[in-house]
């Protein structure tokens, strides 16, 4: 029996811009098993957030399928989609701008419950809100507080409580810890991992921070300019990265140990190019140290090099 909760097949999302087609997500295929986490890493502009938003249909896709429990959600009607939305949730990056400043904590958490008309009596709803607050570690005295009274970590906990309110199966975390300080970031990561264990959640975890993604993911997908360049179980990816871009990403992280200083780090030259009307060939070729002639002409294919380890590279 297949244990796949969600399967993305050849998903494409192009945006029309005055300059041409912007290939935000270009032919990405992934699947996530129930209770597992897929980490998506890449630099700004690589299409990782667009991927997340297209999977839950906040963007209409240009091409491709997303199978949730075996059904293609792009065939769903508006009504079906609304039902589905309760089992797929998203946690946003910025806890400062994703909460309505004029609502209290309890109202913010109640919103999904109200709009889906879950509870008839006020009592039941209040009990549910309180238990949710406890789950995410918000103390009860904050029940009537407003977001501006809280720090970033607590605000992000509200975001998590909101996402959990509908008992979802699948949560997309779009950079949930990037706006937080390290000590708070670690608390939130631990919380997300505990919740996953307790509630059997499945995560798509989007981040630019490789060290964060290593902690929380079972599998990692590396994206560059809208395309998947490498996908592997987390251990395999860190021990044995193959694609030059993945290697460069790993080499670029400043490590908190001494003795690394002054060594020329394994970085890459140049900067990310525009994904508008990309030329054929490997999109990384211009920044790649190992680029051959073939790389500029032919699109590399995403192939399996060892078990569950996929790479799109000519070398």
């Amino acid at each position, binding site marked *: 029996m297949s244990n796949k909760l969600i399967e993305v097949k050849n998903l494409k999302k192009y945006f029309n811009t005055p300059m041409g087609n912007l290939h935000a997500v270009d032919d990405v295929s992934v699947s996530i098993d129930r209770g597992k986490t897929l980490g998506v890493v890449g630099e700004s502009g690589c299409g990782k957030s667009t991927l997340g938003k297209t999977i839950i249909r906040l963007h209409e896709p240009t091409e491709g399928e997303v199978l949730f429990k075996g059904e293609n959600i792009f065939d769903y009607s508006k009504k079906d989609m609304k039902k589905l939305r309760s089992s797929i949730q998203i946690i946003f990056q910025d806890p400062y701008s994703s909460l309505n400043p004029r609502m209290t904590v309890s109202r913010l958490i109640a919103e999904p419950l109200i709009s889906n008309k879950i509870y008839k009596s006020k009592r039941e709803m209040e009990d549910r809100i309180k238990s949710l607050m406890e789950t995410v570690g918000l103390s009860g005295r904050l029940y009537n507080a407003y977001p501006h009274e809280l720090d970033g970590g607590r605000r992000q906990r509200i975001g998590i409580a909101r996402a959990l309110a509908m008992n979802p199966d699948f949560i997309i975390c779009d950079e949930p810890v990037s706006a937080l300080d390290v000590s708070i970031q670690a608390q939130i990561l631990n919380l997300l991992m505990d919740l996953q264990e307790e509630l059997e959640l499945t995560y798509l975890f989007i981040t630019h921070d490789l*060290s964060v993604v290593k*902690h929380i993911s079972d599998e990692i997908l590396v994206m560059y300019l809208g395309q998947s360049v490498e996908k592997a179980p987390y251990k395999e990816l860190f021990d044995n990265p193959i694609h030059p871009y993945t290697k460069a990403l790993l080499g670029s992280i400043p490590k908190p140990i001494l003795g690394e200083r002054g060594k020329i780090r394994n970085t890459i030259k140049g900067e990310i190019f525009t994904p508008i009307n990309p030329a054929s060939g490997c999109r990384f070729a211009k920044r790649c140290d190992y680029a051959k002639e073939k790389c500029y002409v032919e699109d590399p294919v995403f192939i399996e090099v060892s078990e569950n380890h996929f790479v799109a590279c000519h070398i």
Partner: protein
Amino acid sequence: MREKLLEIRDLKVIYKTDEETVEAVNNIDLDLYKGESLGIVGETGAGKTTTALSIIRLLPYRVAKILSGEIIFNEQNLLELSEKDMRKIRGNNISMIFQDPMSSLNPVLTVEDQIAEVLRLHMDYGKEMIKKRVKEVLQLVGIPHDRMFEYPHQFSGGMKQRVGIAIALACDPDLLIADEPTTALDVTIQAQVLNMIDELQSRLKTSMILITHDLGVVAQTCDNVAIMYAGEIVESGTAKDIFEGERHHPYTEGLFGSIPNLDIDEKRLNPIQGVMPEPSMLPSGCRFHPRCPHCMDICIAESPQSKSFDGHHIKCHLFL
């Protein structure tokens, strides 16, 4: 022999508004020697940026008050200088790189104009000489000089930060203050910029204060490290003391425990419990005691003194 360039003694800065008084920096001491780099690490609200702005005297003057202390730079107390004299030092002997390259450049001036501005102010250069120097510093930071007539919006984030660094280096400063210079950049670009800062710093023998929340960045670029928490320096020493020393302040330990480690295969992190205290309502005694796993009775009552182990200072009752 190490020569002292900057000495901060007993600096205390508050922000006073109608509603509250925020104790941003509380009686800190800092030393910086010529040619060395110092990393100031801490979380949001620890007082890192306030310390930097006090040195360069750019604190918002309506709300910020320096209550006590002195900042000795090249044997003169910067806090006693008139604004006119300070202006001669700022951008010339002491310059600053800001966090956000998108908003710290003037969008309506060309890159050349913005670099030339500091030169016109501080150097007695003719037009030709200024142009030559602009080209030189651009080359220094790795921007082809035919881009000097472009505007900031034509540059990417990493390139803008390079322009910021070029402006800071234009007058050959003695002290460079970099306030989170790479926080807004992607990792690969961050690595490029850090490599460049490290290389330039050792080549030009400029002293540097690097402010960051990222211990990794500090390990790559700094000789000395000071860890700040709630307006105090809780631990300071050489990079070796901080990264490899045996004794640590519990907060430093917590910071290290919070970083996801790439080399060790461990799933759970060991974060610090609780959150930073409100700077307007700091706890009594040791500022860290509500979050500290080793909290004792004395920590609640008394603020600890700093204890030195061969230049490695720790401010904690555990070591007194």
